[in-house]
């Protein structure tokens, strides 16, 4: 009966997520994925090599885009990887009494549901991390090798997760006898040679991209990388539970609840293996951040099923002891954040405002004052040619691309064409606005439209 109810809840949430996949327009990061999926493979590799992520997810999206390049189509692979992750949770915790509660909490997790509907690689990262853990648990060395290789080519956090899986795999082997008892199978013996080979193969296969990664370190910048501080670490932990678009009026109270639940649950991890797979990735990210800020909550999505395992234990054990305060707080937080994520209808107000306005103009060339505007418009207005103006401003908005990526995407910084439509306002910093004001004197104003966050000005060439 209990299982039937859990099945129904999980299926209902998955159905709701599928139906709402295209509820929101793409935001910058997703539009960047879409831009890469629309260019040919050679350019895609060049554009990726000059950016900050490995290419695997973009190649999957390239294949998907050939079938369906709509918002729904682009987000569908992430949804599938989320379902695959749930399957892995089932296989990993199959023999555990907390299987169903872990599965239920993971399936209804706000963070997982958010990234199940985003054209980014985070649910793939979660799936591969779980696959690696499953392979270690069942001593499937080839599967482990494959999952590590794919992890490395999915996200740079793959290096951290591979390291964690290596530690877990070593600890699992150390527990085994060096020589098996005569009545046991030879398979029960520790096999460090096999284990090292398993991890060496992905290492060798990753070598070509390692060279690229060293170059990429120069591009790791932008506002989404948190500076390292106690507040920064706490914000990352808070964002694992509280969605970005959460109701601001109650965010304060729910943050306290999130911290209470998190701190209470950590002691329920108990087994050393579970502590390592949950805590070690966060610790490694913090340590790396002393040298290069890399702390980013969404890249920690893969640890969530393990965190929900400990929360599940906390809930079950507290209810058994007839202590309801912590379970009640967590369930309230979980239900409300889940509803919030499923009902959000905008991820970027700028996109919602500006794209329909630009679409209504019949421009063949659009000049942009920054990358964010160009990347978003390029997906929604593919008929036009897009250029980024050299404003000389330091780009402080979300988007910032290297010259190599801009060129591979065809977003050259030069002017061409007959009719220019040129938007300023919503995506613009004050520096870019001042540049645009001087630049637009060459053009004749044909249209000005005020939008919520600034103004869209449309100019034609004299």
């Amino acid at each position, binding site marked *: 009966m209990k299982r039937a109810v859990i099945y129904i809840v999980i299926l209902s949430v998955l159905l709701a997520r599928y139906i709402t996949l295209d509820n929101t327009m793409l935001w910058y990061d997703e539009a960047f994925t879409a831009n890469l999926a629309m260019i040919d493979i050679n350019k895609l590799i060049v554009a990726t090599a000059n950016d900050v992520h490995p290419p695997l997810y973009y190649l999957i999206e390239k294949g998907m885009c050939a079938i369906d390049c709509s918002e729904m189509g682009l987000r569908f692979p992430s949804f599938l990887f989320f379902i695959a992750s749930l399957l892995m949770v089932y296989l990993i915790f199959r023999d555990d009494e907390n299987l169903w509660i872990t599965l239920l909490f993971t399936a209804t997790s706000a963070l997982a549901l958010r990234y199940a509907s985003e054209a980014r690689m985070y649910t793939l990262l979660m799936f591969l991390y779980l696959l690696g853990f499953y392979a270690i648990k069942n001593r499937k060395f080839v599967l482990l090798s494959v999952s590590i290789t794919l992890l490395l080519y999915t996200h740079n956090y793959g290096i951290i997760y591979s390291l964690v899986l290596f530690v877990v795999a070593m600890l699992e082997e150390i527990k085994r006898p060096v020589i098996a008892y005569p009545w046991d199978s030879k398979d029960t013996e520790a096999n460090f040679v096999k284990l090292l080979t398993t991890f060496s193969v992905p290492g060798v296969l990753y070598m070509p991209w390692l060279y690229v990664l060293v170059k990429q370190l120069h591009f790791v910048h932008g506002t989404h990388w948190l500076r390292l*501080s*106690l*507040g*920064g670490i*706490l*914000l990352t932990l*808070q964002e694992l539970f509280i969605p970005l678009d959460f109701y*601001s*009026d*109650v*965010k*304060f*109270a729910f*943050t*306290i*609840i999130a*911290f*209470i639940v998190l*701190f*209470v649950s950590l002691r329920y991890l108990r087994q050393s293996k579970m502590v390592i797979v949950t805590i070690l990735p966060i610790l490694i990210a913090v340590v790396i951040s002393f040298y290069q800020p890399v702390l980013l909550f969404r890249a920690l999505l893969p640890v969530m099923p393990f965190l929900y395992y400990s929360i599940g234990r906390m809930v079950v054990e507290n209810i058994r002891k007839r*202590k309801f*305060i912590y379970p009640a*707080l967590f369930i309230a937080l979980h239900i409300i954040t889940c509803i919030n994520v499923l009902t959000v209808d905008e991820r970027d107000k700028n996109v919602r405002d500006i794209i329909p306005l630009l679409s209504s103009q019949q421009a063949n060339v659009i000049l942009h004052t920054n990358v964010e505007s160009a990347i978003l418009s390029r997906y929604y207005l593919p008929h036009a040619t897009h250029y980024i103006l050299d404003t000389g401003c330091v780009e402080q908005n979300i988007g910032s691309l290297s010259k190599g990526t801009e060129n591979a995407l065809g977003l050259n910084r030069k002017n061409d064409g007959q009719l220019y439509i040129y938007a300023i306002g919503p995506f613009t910093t004050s520096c870019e606005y001042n540049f645009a004001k001087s630049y637009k004197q060459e053009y004749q104003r044909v249209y000005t439209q005020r939008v919520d966050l600034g103004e869209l000005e449309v100019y034609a060439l004299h």
Partner: protein
Amino acid sequence: MTEYYTKLLQIYADSDRVLIMLAGVALLLILADKLSQKITPLIGFDISGIVEVLILITIIISFTVRL
């Protein structure tokens, strides 16, 4: 009471400090709960229920605070 918290938040205007304060409140409440469980057998009077009510009151008050 809300005004008091709002003033406190103005002091902790920096978001880092707000988060540290919230994490501190969470830890204090958990610690109080743990202590109450340890103390109850010593004094022969169950005070864990009082701490649970304290946790609830803190959270209810925090719902009145806007960031």
